[in-house]
């Protein structure tokens, strides 16, 4: 599969203050390879450098060092050609306040050179896709946050981009709107086959949308992989919590398939297993066989947030988990 985005050794420092004496190294040698048709997530806390990285890849910002190729075009030498084939939507969207939804779309459609009939058809289709029909003539500054976000996504599809950059697409949205937006992104990507690079600090969003994920912290990529591979990599496992009465066979519990570790404190047993759903039944069976009475069972599955925290911890303590 051809690469849609290729970045090598990207560094970026921002300077502020009198004569720029305050330096902040925001990106420290980022390498990325994203295949065409992938949904790739860049995850990290606020200030990790996500937006800076996305801005560089979308040609809005030039790096201090490093190489960028988007769709095989040099991002540092030929940004204009790249801009023809990419687009961007960001959370906390801002557009011209007086222009209505359809006027904003027409304006940006014109910026991409769309002629009359083609532009009208495109704007109509996007308005319908994002359920903006009732807000056609509402000026931007009177739209709700969710509507602004829909408009931003609609705008980002005006030129049928081959690479779509999404910067925190669901930030500040209600959960129901966030889910709707994610569904839209997923189905549009599937339909058009475009490459999507999204930044987010929302682990669930990344997990539900992305084929692959990069963890970014303090300007460095900690690791890259599929959500499943990342979870496997840290071997954190899922946690089965069982409140019980009586005694259990600790030896049998430790020998059981998939059990990584366990601890018992008073009447609460926490069993760490490789796959919670798969091991829940056998673990409960061991409790019954030991003659213990089970009062309550809960299953805590590892999510990307746990994985990220684990990676960040490992990096902080210099354990060399940069993969």
């Amino acid at each position, binding site marked *: 599969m051809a690469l849609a985005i290729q970045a090598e050794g990207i560094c970026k420092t921002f300077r502020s203050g009198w004569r720029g004496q305050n330096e902040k190294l925001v990106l420290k040698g980022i390498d990325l390879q994203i295949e065409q048709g992938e949904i790739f997530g860049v995850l990290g806390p606020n200030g990790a450098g996500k937006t800076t990285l996305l801005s560089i890849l979308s*040609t809005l*910002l030039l790096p201090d060092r490093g190489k960028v190729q988007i769709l095989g075009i040099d991002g540092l030498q030929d940004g204009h050609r790249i801009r023809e084939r990419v687009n961007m939507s960001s959370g906390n969207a801002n557009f*011209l306040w*007086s222009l209505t939804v359809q006027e904003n779309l027409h304006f940006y459609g014109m910026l991409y050179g769309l002629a009359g009939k083609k532009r009208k058809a495109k704007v109509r289709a996007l308005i319908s896709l994002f359920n903006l029909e009732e807000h056609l003539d509402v000026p931007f500054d009177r739209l709700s946050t969710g509507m602004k976000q829909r408009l931003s996504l609609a705008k980002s599809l005006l030129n049928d981009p081959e690479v779509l950059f999404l910067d925190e697409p669901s930030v500040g949205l209600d959960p129901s709107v966030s889910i709707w937006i994610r569904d839209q992104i997923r189905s549009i990507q599937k339909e058009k086959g475009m490459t999507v690079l999204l930044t987010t600090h929302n682990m669930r969003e990344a997990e539900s949308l992305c084929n692959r994920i990069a963890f970014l912290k303090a300007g460095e990529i900690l690791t890259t992989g599929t959500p499943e591979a990342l979870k496997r990599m840290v071997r954190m496992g899922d946690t089965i919590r069982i409140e019980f009465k009586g005694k259990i066979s600790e030896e049998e519990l430790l020998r059981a398939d998939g059990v990584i570790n366990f601890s018992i404190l008073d009447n609460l047993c926490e069993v760490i297993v490789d796959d919670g759903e798969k091991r829940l039944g056998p673990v409960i069976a061991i409790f019954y066989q030991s003659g213990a009475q089970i009062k309550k069972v809960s299953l805590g599955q590892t999510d990307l947030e746990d994985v990220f925290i684990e990676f960040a911890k490992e990096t902080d303590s210099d354990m060399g988990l940069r993969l």
Partner: protein
Amino acid sequence: MSSSNLQKKLIQIWAFVYKNWIMTKRNVFSLFEILFWPVVGFLSVGLLTDFLKLDANMSGFILIGIISMSVTQVCQIDVAYVLLYDLWSKSMKHTFIAPVYPFQLIFGSWLIGVFRSFIVFLVLSILSSLAFGFDFLRPGIGPLSLFLLGLFLISALVGMMVCILVLLFGYKADVAAWSISSLMALICGIYYPISILPSPLPEIARAIPLTYFLEYFRTFYGFDAEMKGLLGWGFGLTAAYLMIEAFLFKAVLYRARKKGVLIKLSE
């Protein structure tokens, strides 16, 4: 360039006409910009010339100045608005992630500026005729067209300079949108010949094309030119400055991409 490519470029230019036109239409203050302030300014200066009992030519000298200033201010502000609207709405990055060239941005907004300032010119020239008996058509259509073209091009220069300053200094630069043209009018002899200015202002005035266009138009009302080759100097300097500013615009846009200005101004 293929015809479809040319069409695309023209549509991109038209985008900025469209944007400025709608923003103008929706903004009640734009009516003040193109009618209220120019008319109030014009009438107050015109009445002053009446009070001072100036002869027709001297009144004409001053009325040419005030009308030129109004036309230039309205036209240049439209060019400046092309980035100021993006600045105020924090949508700068959406403009610059699109495949548009700086000249399209400037040219599109300049077209709407020419349209709006031509309305100002029509209103003020009709008023000058009705209220003060001043005939703006006396030099003839040709010289008047050249004079107006000069004013419109100077407006493009001033508006571009504001855009350059916006990309350099962000929000701190929007004050330039109103001050540069006023300062230029002061130096270029809007109500007086530049010879009365203290040194080195006359020398500076000679480096500004507006000085030549004002003096050119005033020659049709009985005032001798202090300089020669007025139109040549006026258009020559304008062309030179346009080229310099086009280069500067490209350079500051590169700097803005390097320093992250486009991102900062969109947050």
